[in-house]
């Protein structure tokens, strides 16, 4: 059955239930690696590297710590740990993320909005998966 998102929440670093998030999307990609051998009748693949990207749209409010954390992420390279998208009880995608873009839109007669992109990534020394999916 479809899941309603009325108990959704976003955690950005140490800031839980961040306000003003208008829209969020997460894309998880599993890169296939082709291992087809000469003489095979069909292609063969094995599972490759997992990668995930998160796009956040929010109404910019400099008084919200979660929003400024995203700005710090792009300004100072501070990692967002964790970045958790929870769309219902016990249903979430979480991990360590790096901000790759921050796009502020401010037009006359409107309110300031920010679109930010993040990738879930492990640090050099991390052996653990940078993303945890609880479904």
């Amino acid at each position, binding site marked *: 059955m479809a899941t309603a*998102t009325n108990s959704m929440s*976003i955690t950005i670093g140490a800031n839980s239930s961040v306000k003003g998030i208008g829209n969020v999307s997460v894309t998880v990609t599993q890169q296939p690696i082709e291992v087809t051998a000469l003489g095979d009748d069909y292609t063969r693949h094995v599972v490759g590297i997992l990668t995930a990207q998160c796009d956040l749209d929010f109404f910019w409010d400099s008084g919200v710590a979660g929003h400024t954390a995203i700005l710090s992420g792009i300004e100072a390279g501070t990692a967002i740990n964790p970045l958790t998208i929870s769309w219902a009880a016990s249903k979430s995608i979480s991990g360590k993320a790096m901000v790759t873009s921050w796009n502020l839109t401010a037009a006359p007669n409107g309110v300031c909005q920010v679109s930010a992109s993040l990738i879930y990534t492990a640090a050099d020394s991390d052996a653990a998966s940078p993303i945890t999916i609880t479904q």
Partner: protein
Amino acid sequence: MIEANVVAGLVAAPQTAAADRVHIGARLQSGALPALVVRMPTGESAAVGDTLHVYTLELSAVAATMVSAQSLAAAAITKLRTYIVGVNASNCVIESTYAPIDDPVVGEGDEAEPAVCTANLTIYWTP
């Protein structure tokens, strides 16, 4: 709720010329002019967790002449903006609003119908 504040701002603490002739939704044709008709057709969550709501509000100022309709619309916008933002302090934002002057409508024969000046407002509100 912001709906109550809108009504209170325009009706309960009247400071507009049509303070005692504010109508919610529609105006009876036999009612006196000038009058203000208020509609709030949409209100919805704009952000995750119901922390930010967005409303659209329509203010139609109806008067005998276009000048008085425009004047009333301007007064209503100012009144509403002052009241709502005042009551809700920092958790309410109203986008810049203008009340374009509608073309005068000519009815049966050569008689002009009442002049109408309509403003559409977008209100962002956090409880």
